[in-house]
């Protein structure tokens, strides 16, 4: 899944990493936006072997976008703001 920045895309850049790889994001991005606009493709794998997931409701209800952030523990990507320097692991 690739989120496409349609407007207001010239905000200051921040850097996050996903499983060690650098991604470029923008101030004001949620983690979900940062990762999926940055080319992550997916956020986690289903624990039960039915493939990659990248969130679904984007409003904190479906619980399908949990990832781990160093120093923060497990968080919902859609309701967590991305911060410069965040190190994210796929959930």
């Amino acid at each position, binding site marked *: 899944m690739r989120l496409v920045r349609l407007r207001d895309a010239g905000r200051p850049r921040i850097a996050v990493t996903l499983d060690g790889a650098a991604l470029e994001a923008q101030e004001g991005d949620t983690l979900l936006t940062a990762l999926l606009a940055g080319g992550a493709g997916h956020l986690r794998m289903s624990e039960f072997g039915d493939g990659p997931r990248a969130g679904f409701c984007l*409003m904190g209800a479906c619980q399908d976008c949990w990832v781990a952030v160093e120093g923060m523990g497990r968080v919902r990507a859609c309701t967590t*703001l991305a911060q410069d320097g965040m190190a994210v692991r796929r959930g």
Partner: protein
Amino acid sequence: MKVAVVGAGPAGIRAVEVLVAAGLRPVWIDEAAEGGGRIYQRPPAPLKRDAKALYGFEAGRATSLHAAFDALRPQVDWRPETLVWHIRPGAKQLHTQSGPRRDQVEYDAAILCTGAMDRVVPLPGWTLPGVTTLGGAQIALKAQGCGIGRRVVFAGTGPLLWLVAYQYAKAGAEVAAVLDTTPFATKLAASPGMLRDAATFAKGIYYIGWLRAHGVRIAEGVTPIGIEGEAGVSGIAWRDPGGREQRVDCDAVGMGWGLKPEAQLADLAGIPFRHDPLQWNWVPERDVAGRTAIAGHYLAGDGAGIGGAAVAELAGARAALAVLEDAGRMVDAAQLSRLDAALARQQGFRAALDRAFPFPRALAAGVADETILCRCEGLRAGELRAALAADHAPGPASELNRAKAFSRAGMGRCQGRVCGTAAAEIMAAALGSTPEAIGRLRGQPPVKPIPLVAEPVA
């Protein structure tokens, strides 16, 4: 008097406004960082907040609510980014979690304005990255300035289907198709009732007309076949009303069939529920003023039954007045009757809207055995059907919570929010029963996940 208001969407804002005007300083809690609710969610500060661009026809309403919220915030005990994960109605306590911090809020009266989420039907491929709810697609655009893909198909039914498609097209995304499961004739038949709110009706007509005029592919009365793709979405297939298979390439799909109340807190508060035959949702029971069978607990907004944002504003104010009335305070009788009249007027429009965009029961009941039903547990529809066939039971699992116990449907992180509606339809069809008789998944604390910690931060 201590009043707690849960939710800072249209209902919560208007409720708090009334309470503050009466000289109270309520505790006001929302999971978001700011007020507005999901419908008028504001982008985080680094993004621009041009109301006209973000909310279109709703800009005036959104601006007014945001201004009200900003004015109220210093006058209340505002608790942003805070989840109410449990409620103890007897002791009148709310239990909250905010980051690592856990807290307890005591109240004399609580107004629950907990909103709604998309009602969905599982389709083959619906767990693929690139598939979101219609609400999710809209939030990506409004709050993050992003489209869910480069070439997007919107599928489902309801006013949101057309609104989101319009918003995407206006924002410059390519809308590859709009697939409405409701035939045009059904909408047409309901249109006289919708004229009760001519302005809203006109907006709906405008979106559809605009999309047609701009050459967006539109299909009505469709039966979705499935979303295609491997690691992501590559297309969607459907059957047209004539039974012919159609497909279109796309890299994202937004889907939804109306809304359902996020009523878990009302459930935990012990408020009785009923199955609303028109909305086709389980809704917590309340009177027109938002009073419930559990003293001191009031409901307003879509969390109390889907009514839309305009109704939510009225209902929020009305519930707050009910709180004041019940506390023996003087309230403005003219304001009361104005609100009651406006709420009554809206009811007729809402009923017509529900008739215009009915939930596709057959589609939900017919989810193929191999299609994932419960995303959290990776459970397929066939596994639920197998559990119904007296596998472990003394008889068929005739009730949704027992089916959950046997099959794990609804046992995951979301507690059946997403799959519950379809699971009930599948059961009803398999057992020759009705969703009303099948029941609903009971809410269980925590309302949303909370972390295990050694020492809670108080």
